């Protein structure tokens, strides 16, 4: 277990031990370890890296450190800046999971069901990746390359998520057969950006990566259908493809109602 006290130290350790598995809240990592799905050479504990724990707003850009938790998003000033992300945070797990689980961890896992991803995608978020070689940013859409796969290099860490809050009405919804503590059978974030005349939607658990659909506001009548059509859901133990597509259509209709009211 490697426990760096600064981001520089963390990056140096990551460069030295590319096989070390970063751990933030541990809510995904510890499950993997307990289920014996993973036996990393070392664990890079990021909990003592102060730079990752904070968020800031500079020149219109909201910078959310990778170690910011769902509870912090839900109960802090970020909620007003990123309302859909706050709604998504409220749907995550239980209070214990929200206290531990982080944005960086959700991106690191890159699950098609990750609840933080659709709201960030409709807000056009970028990911900041750091290594001893330097810092690069890339759009979140490009970062998510496949189911549980992302564009991180072995020596890189996620340092932050960058987003320019659109201020557009937006919402997040998640469907599961239980009223709390479920992995999304399907989820949807939607925003109606009147300034840009644009509808943006992103859905989870209905394709290998979260889907993204955009259309002019003028197409609001057909937008729910467009979202449902864009999905490539499968049948699995959590739900059927037919249900996922159906639910997306319903969610999109309701989300439009909410955001265009």
């Amino acid at each position: 277990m490697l426990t760096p006290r600064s981001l520089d130290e963390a990056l140096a350790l990551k460069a030295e031990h590319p096989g070390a598995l970063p751990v933030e809240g541990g809510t995904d990592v510890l499950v993997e370890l307990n289920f014996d799905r993973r036996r990393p050479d070392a664990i890079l504990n990021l909990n003592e890296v102060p730079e990752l724990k904070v968020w800031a707003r500079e020149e219109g850009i909201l910078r959310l450190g990778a170690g910011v938790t769902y509870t912090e998003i839900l109960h802090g000033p970020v909620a007003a800046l990123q309302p859909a992300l706050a709604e998504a945070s409220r749907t995550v797990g239980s209070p214990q999971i929200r206290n531990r689980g982080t944005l960086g961890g959700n991106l690191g896992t890159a699950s098609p069901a990750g609840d933080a991803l659709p709201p960030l995608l409709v807000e056009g978020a970028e990911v900041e990746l750091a290594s001893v070689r330097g810092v690069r940013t890339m759009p979140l859409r490009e970062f998510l390359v496949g189911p549980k796969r992302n564009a991180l290099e072995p020596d890189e860490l996620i340092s932050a998520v960058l987003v320019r809050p659109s201020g557009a009405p937006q919402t997040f919804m998640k469907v599961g057969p239980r009223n709390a503590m479920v992995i999304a059978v399907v989820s949807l974030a939607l925003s109606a950006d009147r300034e840009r005349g644009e509808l943006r939607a992103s859905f989870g658990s209905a394709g290998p990566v979260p889907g993204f659909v955009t259309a002019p506001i003028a197409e609001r009548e057909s937008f729910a259908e467009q979202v449902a059509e864009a999905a490539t859901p499968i049948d699995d133990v959590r739900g059927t493809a037919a249900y996922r597509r159906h639910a997306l259509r319903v969610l999109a209709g309701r989300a439009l109602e909410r955001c265009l009211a």
Partner: protein
Amino acid sequence: MTSAAPRLVSGRIGDVVARADGGPKVKGEFAYASDLSAAGMLWGHTLRSPFAHARIRSIDLTAALTMPGIHAVLTHGDVPGQKCYGLEFADQPVLAIDRVRYFGEAVALVAAEHPEQARRAAERIVVDYEPLEPVVDAERAVEQDPLHPDAPTMGHGYRRDPRPNVVRSIVIRHGDPNVEGDVAISGVYDVGIQDQAFLGPESGLAVPDGEGGIDVYVATQWLHVDRDQVAPCLDLRPEQVRIHLAGVGGAFGGREDLSIQIHGAMLALHTGRPVKMVYSREESFVGHVHRHPARIWAEHRANRDGKLVCVRMRILLDGGAYASSSTAVTSNAASFACGPYAVENALIESTCVYTNNPPCGAMRGFGAVQTCFAAEAQMDRLAAELALDPVELRLRNALAPGDVLPTGQRVTGSMPVAEVIRRCAALPVPEPEALPRDPIRLPGGAGNVTRGQGVSRGVGFAVGFKNICYSEGFDDFTAARVRLFLDARGELAAEVHCAAAEVGQGVTGVIAQVARTELELDEVTLAPHTTATVGSAGSASASRMTWMAAGAVQLACRAAKAELERRGELGAGDEIDLERVYRHERTTPLDPETGQITGERAHVAFACAAMRVVVETDVELGLTRVVWIGTAQDVGKALNPQAVTGQIEGGTAQGLGLALMEEIRTSDGLITNASFTDYLLPTALDMPPVVSDLVEDPEPGAPYGLKGVGEPPTVVSTAAVVSALRAATGRALTRVPVRPDDIVGL
């Protein structure tokens, strides 16, 4: 010194008594079986079959034996005694011999210094399997090759059924099943596989005694029947095997069958060291029996006035690979198929088959859950057909003392069906909560999916009943031992021994309450639950444990008191130490051909419950919020009202789980959701507050007039929740769990 004058003693029968284990459990201080440890302890691990059905050609242990930290790798050849065991029929190999019959069947055992070493070594055991076509369709099983060619359950006084793979079939013929009524309602109903999903996985510690015997500390439901299964497989005498109850983290029927008992003992005896075994969550899901899935064909015939004239029902249960308690579940399903209604004519056929699906056995409700779901759906449809109020229809048919059950048994004890219906129906149903509201208080809950769109409210009602205590001639008894002595202060004190398994239901509290009441003493302690110092208590199941333990402790206390009175007083160092065995009224088997009683009764007593449920369902997304539940339950006498309402709430949650989400999913016999990520249990947002009205109509012949209370809420709640869902959605909903797709109509 003794005093004959009655004293004021707290914590007696009828008082609200807080649970002694409540605080420690909430604070995480309670020692569960998985917390046990011993000096020099090794860790055991079980290698399990990845196939639902396969022949074993060979097993090669070479690689595993050379792994670090390994002390033993055992297979069927190492089982010292009988190779097979079972709760009622020894049809299950301790370790698979030449064939595996279900996904997760135990094949080999490993003991190592560290649990991970044991797991790693198990991965290196090479088992050469030849996969076989699994029998997975219960309807087809009766035409396929037998999984147990020797038909181990046949010839035990059951109906002869020559079809392959039948575990047991029973036909109850009552009156004239060909009688027609003014109307007939027929339907087909399906019940998925529910799991007990106790939070404390199977765990225990086996400690060799150095003289060839063994002490097993384990979370179980029936210590003595464990011993009687363990000893012959180890080739030991019963007294060489001592089973001690370790902290149980829930049971619900799933700990009636053995888990680690023989395996841990084999490893411990082989290595001469204590061996601990703890199942992982996944292993727990595959390693214990489940509730039987069922398909039920029902036809109800009634007259215009709503009076049932005939019920015909065919029940098919999938028992999975081994018998477990399937024979009793089969008959229970048949006994309670009609629900708590007086029906003069009936034809009930209940069959359980062997398949390569996950093995099924005891779970809270024991056959009555499945049939209650079907029968109550039929009653709702009948009410609609006759344009009668569903509550009124049920009242018109309510079973009462003096009525005759389809088995020919006359109800001689308490049977307040009309009373529970009336009392439940009288509970005020809350008004719908106004909109807008926090979406967390709408269907979909935390998912934030609706502000009221698509939401429809429905109110449902159901009634259910089942037997209390073991049935069909089982010689059931409970022993209790009481020791009276003078404590350090010279005050009279009592120690009570009873092997009743405390599985979270609170039986230890009941034992203390009975002893305090009978002995009029505050100073009552409970000795550890073990086979070593007292006779069998029977099983913590069939809603029997409180009745039987109370009966035994009452008998022993009264005998001790009489002895004390005879002696006049106890001197220092004197003691009274005696054991008494309590039996309830005898039952006799059902006639194998007609399903009719062969004596006065096949069941000892019955308990019923009525439940009203309010749901809000998002009919466009198929999501549900259960808003309110009110119930009236027949409890005989509430020994500890707080514990009774606790059982009602927990039992209701379990039935709600089956109605809405709890299901073991399989594909070709393989379990696909063996985790709490995908086997969903209700959360606090899914389970509403329950208003419980306790109906106290004393049961003659039961200690203090009590009835068991654990199962009736589970029996009735699945049916009641789905009744409300039907009202909200207008859909037939003939299968549980109800899936979002079923509500949406996909």
